[in-house]
């Protein structure tokens, strides 16, 4: 029975959820009209974290835009870098060597696991389950250690470069990555034990936030959100980029399109990402990591110090930046939260004329008012959790 029919009819009340509230995952404010505990109207008010990243890009060279993209979805920094460098490479018409592609895939998939672990911990925590947070963060911490080996920090990688990578993988990384990849499937069983058959968890998530397949497409849902509704679509498989066609992986699908199905989809996605990591580590080719194009990638230091051509290349790239041809392109990747797209217009100068970021969180959040209407206030908390939003990605 619809919960709205059960509630007594009274005067409605206005309530602010957020912007400072632990369950809103940052600075989301939801303006609520409540009839008792039943939501009559829910209007998300976003923009508290709007930093004008798209505008800032117009004043910078393409390389200088790269650290800005770290700050989009800060739980999956490498995925944002990945989307941006692929877009600029498409604009330039270059393709990076196989080894760089594999390393990018490896880091992107580890990032996906790390992002999903964060979602699992916080989503569980929002709905009153304390332990998943500790379990998920245990593994996330190991991933953070791995990331720290590669780019020296935890959250903001900026490790990918237009035309390649900042450096090759550090010594000892592959062994440590193997350790993680081997033990992770066992760890996932721990999470399943905690939640999958937990009666409270099922009661809080089943039939909450249901969108059918058609509605999910109409509302622009992508990634695990769409797959939870049964949309058989994964950008990695359907329009492969960066050698994803070399790896075998399954696309988990939900049937009911509710919060519980999306939970199962994301859990299985972690398994599949782990499988991709395993294949990357097995097949990792050797060779160069950067394109052999002096107009795109900085020359090695010995060339800068010892040859005049190297010095000139270095200065041109640092002082002027790369200059893609005039044109406009759209490049989308499968980020942990869905389709992350970059639309770049180049006027032939070293600065992008326009950069549009299609953030998955922004679109996933948009049907809130449809999903929350007639539901209980506590269902809204489950909804925000299942959308896996990062407000930095919503507001940009």
């Amino acid at each position: 029975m619809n919960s709205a029919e059960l509630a007594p009819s009274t005067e409605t009340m206005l309530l602010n959820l957020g912007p400072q509230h632990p369950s809103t995952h940052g600075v989301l404010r939801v303006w609520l009209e409540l009839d008792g505990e039943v939501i009559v109207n829910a209007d998300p008010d976003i923009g508290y974290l709007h930093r004008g990243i798209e505008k800032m890009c117009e004043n910078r060279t393409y390389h200088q835009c790269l650290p800005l993209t770290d700050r989009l979805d800060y739980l999956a920094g490498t995925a944002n870098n990945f989307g941006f460098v692929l877009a600029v490479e498409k604009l330039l018409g270059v393709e990076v060597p196989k080894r760089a592609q594999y390393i990018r895939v490896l880091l992107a998939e580890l990032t996906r696991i790390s992002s999903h672990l964060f979602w699992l911990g916080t989503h569980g925590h929002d709905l009153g389950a304390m332990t998943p947070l500790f379990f998920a963060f245990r593994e996330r911490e190991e991933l953070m250690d791995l990331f720290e080996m590669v780019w020296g920090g935890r959250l903001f990688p900026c490790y990918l470069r237009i035309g390649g990578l900042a450096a090759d993988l550090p010594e000892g990384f592959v062994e440590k990555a193997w350790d993680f990849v081997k033990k992770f499937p066992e760890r996932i069983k721990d999470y399943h034990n905690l939640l999958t058959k937990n009666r409270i968890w099922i009661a809080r998530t089943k039939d909450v936030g249901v969108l059918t397949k058609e509605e999910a497409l109409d509302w622009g849902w992508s990634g695990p959100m769409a797959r939870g509704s049964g949309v058989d679509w994964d950008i990695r498989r359907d329009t492969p980029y960066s050698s994803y066609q070399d790896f075998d992986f399954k696309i988990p699908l939900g049937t009911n399109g509710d919060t519980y199905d999306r939970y199962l989809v994301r859990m299985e996605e972690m398994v599949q990402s782990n499988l991709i990591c395993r294949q990357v580590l097995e097949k990792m080719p050797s060779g160069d990591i950067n394109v052999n194009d002096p107009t795109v990638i900085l020359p090695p230091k010995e060339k800068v110090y010892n040859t005049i051509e190297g010095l000139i290349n270095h200065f041109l790239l640092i002082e002027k930046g790369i200059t893609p041809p005039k044109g406009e392109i759209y490049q989308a990747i499968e980020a942990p939260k869905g389709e992350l797209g970059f639309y770049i217009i180049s006027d032939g100068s070293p600065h992008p004329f326009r950069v549009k970021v299609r953030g998955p969180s922004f679109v996933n959040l948009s049907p809130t008012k449809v999903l929350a209407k007639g539901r209980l206030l506590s269902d809204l908390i489950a909804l925000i959790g299942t959308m896996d939003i990062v407000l930095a990605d919503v507001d940009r």
Partner: protein
Amino acid sequence: MDTVTEKLQTQFPEAIVAIYEFRGDTTVTVKPEQLVAVCQFLRDDPETSFKYLSAVSGVDYYPASPRFAAVYHLYSHQYKKRFALKAFCANDEVPVLPSVVPVWSTADWHEREAYDLVGIKFSGHPDLRRILTPPECEGYYPLRKDYPQEGY
């Protein structure tokens, strides 16, 4: 030329203003009056089947005229194909485009964002308000080219 463009040329010969191809991406510029009809056709025709609107990007081409445009990034799950539609606003002073919310619900927030940051008004939009910047910023559109990039 790809099949979608050919299809549009036969169906809407007078609506197409320009066809642009670059690095495998096709962008077709259409007249704003025909925009909704073209979108509806692309969504419903079984040979195109663009059920999915990825994004709407507002663009300011200053100092060129017509100055404002919206770009609609479409995706067809059936044919695994991307396609972009572009429509320029006829008036540079008061840029207006028809809303495509009746075609794709997701356009709601995308159009609000384009209105907020670039200042394109979408006629027929059910709830056209600022979305990222505060409501009291009336008259300021940060992604316009005449809005300073720093030190404002």
